């Protein structure tokens, strides 16, 4: 194949991202439904979905707001869910670090699970790819994903107001979280980290203001990281 031009890289990004809409559409709609049922108005649901663009963190914030947790706990817990994106940023830096600052600032806004996963894979597979083509590929991935995510949330928010309570949608949130975690339990370290976190959550529930969530997660992260370190050495 010829040297990739920004244009061909952009189109490749678009086509690579389209299948991920199967995940993005239901999650977006579900957030619209859950946010509306929790009592947010349409503007607030759309504010979450365009400014935060991170389903798991948005669900976390809504759940803790329903639980009447203090504001600071809502914010810190939801941001903690997004800390994985610091890892994405660090993993992209060797490939995109030489792009102009404004392009990196734009990519940061577009850096969600799907665009990250696709782009990082492409950069690894094609080490000779020029930086402008890398940027174009990333923007290509984001082109279908982000507008459709926002649109799906809107549809969910409008429909959500019409769904009766018999459908037990209260439980859609835990199910969604399990759905986000289960495929990620790839190694013993991941499983041990998750189990540690669950056991700590159950035994530390007495810590006030929902802070046990952060303590349990931190404990789980340390166990996961330590197992990984020992396995590597």
């Amino acid at each position, binding site marked *: 194949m010829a040297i990739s031009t920004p244009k061909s890289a952009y189109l490749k990004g678009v086509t690579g991202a389209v299948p991920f809409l199967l995940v993005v559409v239901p999650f977006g709609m579900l957030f619209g439904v859950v946010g509306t049922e929790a009592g947010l108005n349409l503007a607030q649901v759309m504010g979450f979905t365009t400014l935060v663009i991170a389903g798991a963190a948005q669900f976390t914030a809504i759940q803790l707001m329903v639980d009447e947790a203090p504001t600071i706990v809502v914010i810190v817990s939801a941001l903690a869910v997004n800390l994985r994106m610091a890892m994405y940023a*660090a993993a992209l830096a060797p490939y995109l670090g030489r792009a102009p600052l404004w392009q990196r600032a734009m990519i940061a806004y577009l850096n969600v699970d799907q665009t990250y996963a696709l782009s990082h894979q492409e950069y690894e597979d094609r080490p000779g790819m020029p930086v402008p083509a890398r940027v174009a590929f990333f923007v290509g991935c984001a082109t279908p994903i982000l507008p459709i995510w926002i649109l799906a949330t809107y549809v969910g928010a409008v429909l959500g107001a019409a769904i009766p309570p018999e459908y037990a949608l209260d439980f859609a949130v835990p199910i969604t*979280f399990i759905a986000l975690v289960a495929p990620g339990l790839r190694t013993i370290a991941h499983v041990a980290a998750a189990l540690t976190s669950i056991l700590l959550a159950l035994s530390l529930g007495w810590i006030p203001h929902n802070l046990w969530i952060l303590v349990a997660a931190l404990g789980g992260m340390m166990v996961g990281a330590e197992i990984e370190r020992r396995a590597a050495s």
Partner: protein
Amino acid sequence: MTSWSDPAIWGIIAALGIGTYAIRFSFLGLLGDRAFPDWVLRHLRYTAVTILPALITPMVLWPEATSGQTDPARLAAAVAALAGGYLARNAIVAILCGMATLYLVQFAVG
């Protein structure tokens, strides 16, 4: 969620928007293409699989919709979602397994 005023809700949205952007920008924007310490990345890799289970576990065991009573239908749904998502390595399969089990058991116990 009646206790949240409009300004409080918008404040949370703004804080999460800015905070999340700062996280996304962090190493990409500030570090450029310099390398990053392994031990930090090692910990960050486990954020998603730890914070979400901590949050879910009480919701699964003591659901608010049943006033904190353990509910067989919701418990079975959680197990089905976990098994489906783990085996298929797919989030949508997990949601379908979980919600189908929830409705089936609720219907059967009815």
